């Protein structure tokens, strides 16, 4: 292993992380809900009554953020350049896995760990491990 110092961004990543923590705090203290993107997204798909509309508003906030980030500090669209088939398979696995496993990077990795949920303390290392293994296979074994 070597550290990639050319791309290392400890300050902006820490600040961005802190903002994510603020968002999770706003949601739990404000309306008593966990900031889990996969769960909010999946349930928003099933929203039928007004009590679930908050999920659509939260997603609207996520969709509007890039425009604000662009004007605030010149954020530009990152390159999502994997082949379409790869993105489809990745999306299917992420969508299905997050529901089966009751959480994603934000639900388990941030909120679950922050509240010391035993399920999240197990799920987070598991998805990180399979993430590391997948990238290892794709980058160093298969290619």
């Amino acid at each position, binding site marked *: 292993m070597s550290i990639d110092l050319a791309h290392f961004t400890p300050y902006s*990543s820490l600040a*961005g992380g802190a903002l994510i923590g603020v968002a999770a705090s706003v949601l739990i203290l404000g309306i008593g809900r966990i900031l889990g993107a996969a769960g909010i*997204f999946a349930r928003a798909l099933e929203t039928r009554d007004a009590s679930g509309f908050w999920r659509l508003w939260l997603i609207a906030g996520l969709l*509007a953020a890039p425009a604000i980030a662009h004007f605030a500090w010149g954020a530009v669209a990152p390159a999502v350049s994997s082949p379409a088939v790869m993105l489809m398979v990745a999306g299917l696995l992420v969508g299905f896995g*997050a529901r089966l496993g009751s959480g994603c990077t934000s639900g388990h990795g941030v909120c679950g760990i922050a509240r010391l949920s035993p399920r999240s303390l197990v799920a987070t290392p598991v998805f990180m491990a399979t993430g590391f293994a997948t990238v290892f296979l794709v980058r160093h074994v298969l290619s």
Partner: protein
Amino acid sequence: MSRNLIALAAGLIFGLGLCLSGMCDPSKVHGFLDLAGAWDPSLAFVMGGAITVAAPAFAFARKRCVAATGEPLSLPKRRDIDAPLLLGAAIFGIGWGLGGICPGPGIVDVGFLSSGAAIFVAAMALGALIYCALDLRLRSPRALTQDA
């Protein structure tokens, strides 16, 4: 009304945090997940920053028991480690590794008008719906309300 505005504010702050953090850039995520190559540890700082800020908020919320709107906290109560948790997390990680995108950043990247992200998010919706269809078939209705 205020409930929806609080959610909108949380979504905006979450989205800005994701933009700033590097989580929305698949190459950044792959750099973090590639331990054997030139490793970029930045995303560990994202998690560290987020947890450091959120942990006291969760502790405080739990002490208060109710949210600002007066409604009770909706926290998952399960503590058991079961096969669906492990299998689901494992599958999620494989998808995250393949695409370099997880759910929140995928939605934010759609906001950046990325067509690749739109494909990812559409597939993610399909994956969630497939889970829902299987789950309705396999599990009792009571179990449906238990996860986050």
